[in-house]
C-alpha cells in the first residue's frame, strides 16, 4: 500500500532524511521509532503530500505522492504531531467540516460522524468547543478527524501523546482493531507502544533507517549474551567467584544492593538450573532467578546511541536483515 524508495529531504544544508526506503503491506501496522528530530515527522509529511521530497519516490495506494496528490490525500487519514483542531468550533462542527472536506455528504456524513464519535468516546463532549477540551480529548478529536472518511491508510504521528494510561490502552486497541483492513504507520518514541500494536518496527536515527524487523526478532538479533538476575538473602563473601565457576557463566556483576547479582552466559545457553542447584545446596537463600530478555528499549538505545561496534559485537551468525549504518560518527545523537 505504501512504497517509499530512496526518499531524501534536505532543508538547505540540513539533511532531514537520507535515502529512506521501506514499504507497508495492506493491513499491516508499522511503527516508526526514533529519537526526536530523527526524521519521523518529515517522512510522514512527505507521505501525506504536505512536503515534497528532494529526491526519491513515494507511492501510496499506487498513486505517486508528487504527481497525484489529490488521489493520495483521498486515501489517507493523517494525524499530525499537533492535533489540527480549530479551537473556536465545537467537536460536532469540526467533524462535520472535516467530513465535508473529504467529500462526505448527507446521510453518509451523519453516520460517519456518529461512528467516530462513538469509537473515540467523544459523545459527552460533542457539543463543546474544542478550545475548552483537555489535551487528551483534543488528541482524540484529532484521531476522529483522521478516521472520519474511513481511509485505507492511516498515518499517525505520535497518536497517544497527551493521553492518560487508560486512554492509551483504548487507542492502542483501536489501532489494533484497524489492522487487517487498514494499513497504518505510526510514529512513537514510546517503545512498549511499538511492541504492543505493531507487526513491524522501523528504527530511524539521524535521518537514516538503522533497523527494520519485527519487535521480537529485533531484540533477539541484537542480543549477544543471555542475562540472568539472581537474588540471594544469605550471599557469602565469595559468592561471586563461586558463581563464576559454574559451567557457562561468562561474567558475574554485583547488581544493586547486597545479594543481587547479574550473570551473563553464552547465547543459547541456559544456566539457571545449575545456578539454582548451587544456591540451594549451599543454602544461600535463593529468592529470585530470572532470565532478562533484551527489551526493545535496549535495542533502540543501542541503535541510536553513539556506540562503536554494535554490529561487530553482535553474533556474526545473526542479523542479515539488520542494516546498521556504518558511518554513525557523522550523525548527531
Amino acid at each position: 500500500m505504501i512504497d517509499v524508495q530512496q526518499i531524501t529531504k534536505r532543508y538547505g544544508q540540513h539533511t532531514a532524511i537520507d535515502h529512506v526506503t521501506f514499504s507497508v503491506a495492506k493491513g499491516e501496522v508499522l511503527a516508526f521509532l526514533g529519537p526526536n528530530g530523527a526524521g519521523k515527522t518529515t517522512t510522514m509529511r512527505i507521505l501525506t503530500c504536505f512536503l515534497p521530497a528532494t529526491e526519491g519516490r513515494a507511492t501510496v495506494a499506487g498513486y505517486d505522492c508528487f504527481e497525484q496528490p489529490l488521489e493520495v490525500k483521498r486515501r489517507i487519514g493523517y494525524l499530525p504531531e499537533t492535533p489540527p483542531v480549530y479551537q473556536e468550533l465545537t467537536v460536532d462542527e469540526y467533524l462535520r467540516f472535516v467530513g465535508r472536506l473529504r467529500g462526505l455528504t448527507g446521510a453518509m456524513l451523519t453516520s460517519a460522524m456518529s461512528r467516530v464519535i462513538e469509537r473515540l468516546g467523544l459523545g459527552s463532549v460533542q457539543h463543546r468547543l474544542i478550545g475548552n477540551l483537555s489535551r487528551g480529548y483534543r488528541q482524540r478529536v484529532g484521531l476522529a478527524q483522521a478516521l472520519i472518511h474511513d481511509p485505507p491508510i492511516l498515518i499517525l504521528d505520535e497518536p497517544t501523546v497527551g493521553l492518560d494510561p487508560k486512554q492509551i490502552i483504548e487507542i492502542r486497541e483501536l489501532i489494533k482493531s484497524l489492522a487487517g483492513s487498514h494499513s497504518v504507520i505510526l510514529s512513537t518514541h514510546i517503545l512498549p507502544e511499538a511492541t504492543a500494536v505493531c507487526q513491524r518496527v522501523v528504527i530511524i536515527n539521524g535521518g537514516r533507517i538503522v533497523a527494520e524487523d519485527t519487535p521480537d526478532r529485533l531484540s533477539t538479533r541484537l542480543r549477544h549474551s543471555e542475562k540472568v538476575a539472581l537474588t540471594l538473602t544469605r550471599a557469602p563473601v565469595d559468592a561471586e567467584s563461586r558463581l563464576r565457576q559454574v559451567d557457562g557463566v561468562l561474567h558475574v556483576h554485583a547488581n544493586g544492593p547486597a545479594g543481587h547479582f547479574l550473570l551473563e552466559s553464552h547465547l543459547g545457553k541456559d544456566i539457571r538450573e545449575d545456578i539454582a542447584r548451587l544456591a540451594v545446596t549451599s543454602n544461600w537463600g535463593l529468592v529470585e532467578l530470572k532470565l532478562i530478555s533484551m527489551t526493545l528499549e535496549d535495542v533502540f538505545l543501542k541503535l541510536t546511541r553513539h556506540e562503536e561496534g554494535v554490529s561487530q559485537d553482535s553474533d556474526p551468525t545473526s542479523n542479515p536483515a539488520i542494516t546498521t549504518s556504518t558511518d554513525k560518527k557523522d550523525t548527531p545523537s
Partner: protein
Amino acid sequence: MTPVNTLVAKELRSYFVSPVVYVVGGVFLLIVGLLAYIYIVFTGAQAIQLMQVQGQAQINLNDLVFRNLFSSIRFILLIVLPILTMRLFAEEKKLRTFELLMTSPIGLNEIVAGKFMSVFLLFLGLLGLTGLIPLTLALFSDFDWYPVLTGYLGLVLLGALFLSVGVLASALTENQIVAAFVSFGLLLFLWLLTGVGSLLGDTPTGQVISYLSFMEHYDHLVRGLIDTRDLVYFGSAVILMLFLTHRVVDSTRWK
C-alpha cells in the same frame, strides 16, 4: 457542498465566534455613521446659510455628502480590512491546522478562493449595513442614485483589492500582527503611487505609475463613471494578488 463552500462556511463561522469581527465591524459602522452625520449636518448648515442669503438653496447631496463620504471610507477600509484578513493563513500556520487543509483532498486554488470568498462576503455584509445611510437620506431628500450606486461598486472593488492584498500578506507569515502591518504597508504604498505619478506628470512613466495606484480608478467610479479600464484594473489586481498567494503558499512547502 463543494469544498470551496465548505471552507467559506467554516471561515464565516470562525469569524462570527471571534470578537474581532464584532469589534472591527462595530467600529467601522460607527465611524462611517459618524462621518455621514457630520457631512449631512454640515451640508444642512450650509443650506440654512444659503437660505438666509439667497432666500432659496439648491444643495447637491451627491457632491457634498456622498463624494466626501466615499473618499473618507477609503481610509477606514485601509485600516479595517487588514485586521479582517490577517488571520486567514497566519493563524492556521501558527496553530498547525494548516496541515489539515493541505492534506485534505482539496486543491490549493480552492483553499485560496475559499479564504478570499469568506472575508469578501463578510465585507459585503458590513458594506451592506452602511446602505442604511443613503436609504435614510432618500426618505428626506432628493439625490441622484446613479453615482451613489457606482460609488458602492467602487467600494466593492476597492474592498476586493484590499482584501486580496491582505490575504497575500497573511500567507507570507505566521504572525497575525506582521500580516496586518504588511498589508497595511502594501496598501499605503499603492496609495502613494498616485503621488509619485503626479510628480512625474504626463510622461509615460508617470501615467503607468498613476495607473498602478487604485486612486484614480476608484475616483472615476465615485464620480459616476464606469470605465472598462478601471474594472480591468481591479479585476486583474485581485487575480494577481490571489495568484501570488497561491505561489507563496505552495513555495513554503519547498523550503
